[in-house]
């Protein structure tokens, strides 16, 4: 990113810059279980998140801006998630999609399931549900885009992140009012 992650840009430039970034999120789908199907549904023609500028199925983590962890993360798999996350270039964003990725979900007492992907990597948006509907993922993406629009890149790179958002935690899930 060069100078841009060192220097705070003037506000109008930053606005345009963030606007460009938020509408070209290359997305890496870490599909681990049933929720991955909902992610795929969200990427296909009916819900079609390409219209929000999210480009699914990046060729690999090195080409991706957004990591969507959808499904049940096991302790055995956790190092792989960590590693792929670390391969992604900054600035990178994580959406935790589904109860399993949020907190272990129905397998909260299992011997093998990690109790939330946030134990391994930082998460920006939590989308609750088992599985969440594709609309919920769209909602999560819009929320993330909102965050990106209002953030400062140097802050982000320096690790000063905004607080994570849990969809539906303060109000019912809805596409309005964002």
């Amino acid at each position, binding site marked *: 990113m060069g100078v841009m992650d060192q220097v705070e840009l003037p506000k109008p430039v930053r606005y345009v810059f963030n606007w460009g970034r938020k509408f070209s999120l290359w997305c890496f789908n870490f599909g681990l279980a049933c929720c991955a199907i909902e992610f795929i549904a969200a990427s296909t023609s009916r819900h079609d998140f390409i219209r929000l500028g999210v480009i699914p199925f990046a060729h690999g983590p090195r080409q991706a801006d957004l990591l969507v962890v959808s499904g049940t993360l096991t302790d055995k798999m956790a190092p792989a998630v960590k590693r792929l996350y670390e391969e992604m270039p900054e600035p990178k964003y994580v959406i935790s999609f589904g109860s399993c990725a949020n907190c272990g979900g129905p397998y909260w*007492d299992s*011997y093998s399931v990690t*109790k939330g992907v946030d134990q391994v990597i930082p998460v920006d948006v939590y989308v609750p549900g088992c599985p969440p509907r594709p609309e919920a993922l769209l909602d999560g993406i819009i929320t993330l885009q909102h965050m990106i629009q209002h953030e400062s890149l140097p802050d982000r790179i320096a690790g000063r992140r905004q607080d994570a958002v849990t969809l539906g935690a303060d109000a019912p899930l809805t596409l309005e009012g964002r």
Partner: protein
Amino acid sequence: MAGVLARRDRALNPEETEALLREHLGEQVLGSVVEFGTFTCKLAPEGWVEAARLARDEPQLAYDLFDSLFGVDAREEGFDVVAVLYSTSTGNRLVLRTRVPGGRDAPRLASITEIYRGADWMERETYDMFGVVFDGHPGLEPRILTVENFEGWPLRKDFHLASRAAKPWPGVKEPAELDEDGNVIERVPEIGDAPGPYELDKAMAAQAKAVIEQERVEREERERKAAERAAKAAERQARKEAKARAAAEAAAAKAAAAEADADQQPASSDEEDGA
């Protein structure tokens, strides 16, 4: 694998299979059972490898496809290991089952990876989940399903879930019910038992009966009313007909009387005229 000659129409039935195994293994065949259309042969652990070899190589058996292998917790008695074999030529399925020697503390069984290569990972998984050690296996470590440094054998019944210790089950009903002393209540279902909790099933059956009874009463009531209405209508009809008939009769009588009068009248007038 030479000589896989057995054909579907010449496939051995369970009795013949057992007889054949007994012929070769003698006392090591402990018994057999056919359940849900699956033939299960119980073996002594010493005959485990030999039985697998026989099942594969005996031309009449020809169990050439290794399906799966897994463990079963047999509580105090230790663990069972079960192997499922399939024959692509005869279409038969054979289940071999044995109680692993060594009890709960040091279960050890001979590996069948020499015979069925596919048993490799299955045995590793059984080792992972139950801690059964397979002698002669090319390498049980590192653990294949759990993380490498995992402690304990998670599918053993006495394995404690750490999360459960911190937080009780949040649902309505414990998956394993406890009695007052905190012991797990064991329910051994009989064949033909209700599939769900018995009381609930009974309640649902009673409800269904009540609904059916209610419907029956209502239907009878409806039928009775309809019959009553029909009877009344018939009565009314009959009365109407009777009235009409009576009226017609009366009219006819009147007409007849009038006619008689008319016959008499001119006569009398004639009489009057004549007088």
